[in-house]
């Protein structure tokens, strides 16, 4: 017998491991792909995806069904990814300060260019440049752009996840594109 989404959620609230397995199997690709778009590293994406499901398991009792389950999972994925990036940034800054005092010779270097496994071969190089430029966007533009371009969500889905209007999402995406173009132009201007 196949359980409906709502029945699965109810079973998960009762800490049923079978229901949890079905939920993980159903949503793991969505979570992993979203997280990978933000963290831009496959190992980190695996770790953060696991954290997302642990959070789902622990806080399912708080899910009241006001939004779709997928929207709720997307919100957790985005928030966990941003937390991870913040921690990584803090760690990098701390390592830099330690290196100034000669405490640790090993500096956390800038990561190599990220090659998304889902990008076609002829676009890989360009996509790596774009992914690097995306990290410099302001937070909300970054979220809207990744959800739209990497995860392929509609404006309406993004607006539900970010809890803003459709027009706000449109505006965020327009500004993101303008900023990316500006950053890339500057990059090519200085690299001539």
């Amino acid at each position, binding site marked *: 017998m196949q359980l409906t989404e709502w029945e699965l959620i109810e079973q998960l609230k009762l800490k049923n491991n079978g229901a949890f*397995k079905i939920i*993980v*199997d159903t949503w*793991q*690709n*969505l979570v*992993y*792909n979203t997280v*990978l778009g933000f963290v831009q590293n*496959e190992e980190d*994406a*695996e770790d953060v*995806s*696991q954290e997302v*499901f*642990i959070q789902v*398991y622990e806080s399912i009792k708080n899910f009241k069904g006001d939004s779709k389950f997928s929207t709720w999972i997307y919100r957790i994925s985005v928030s966990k990814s941003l937390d991870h990036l913040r921690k990584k940034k803090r760690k990098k800054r701390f390592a830099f300060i330690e290196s100034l005092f000669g405490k640790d010779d090993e500096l956390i270097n800038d990561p190599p260019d990220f090659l*998304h*496994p*889902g*990008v*076609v071969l002829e*676009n890989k190089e*360009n*996509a790596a*440049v*774009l992914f690097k*430029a995306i990290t410099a966007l302001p937070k909300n533009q970054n979220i809207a752009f990744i959800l739209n*371009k*990497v*995860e*392929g969500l509609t404006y309406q889905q993004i607006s539900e996840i970010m809890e803003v209007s459709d027009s706000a999402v449109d505006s965020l995406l327009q500004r993101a*594109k303008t900023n*990316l*173009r500006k950053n*890339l*132009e500057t990059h*090519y*201007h200085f690299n001539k």
Partner: protein
Amino acid sequence: MQNDPTIPNQSDSTRIDNILNSLDNIQPAEPKPFFYTRLMARISNTTQSSWENFSALITRPSVAFSGIFLIVLMNFMAAWLNFKTPAVAEQPEVVGTEEYTQMATNFFDIENIKP
């Protein structure tokens, strides 16, 4: 006419367009196989007893230092209050020998009641 260096030329502009469109038709990435197994292993490794949770809480530097600070503060306050209050020697309760005698007499009186 000299080109404005701040305006990208045609080839740059095309390249930037190509970069901006490079995520078109992207395929979703998938985690490595057996994701659920690894997830459950992680959950079972991180599951702690309530005692472990408690010890983890009290060994946090912020909690530990706050606790030590509170204990030291309470000691100082107690010492200060003792120092401030004049020492009044408590008078021991003196029970007269008469009272003892009376009680003892009464006891033996009960034992030696004659008809």
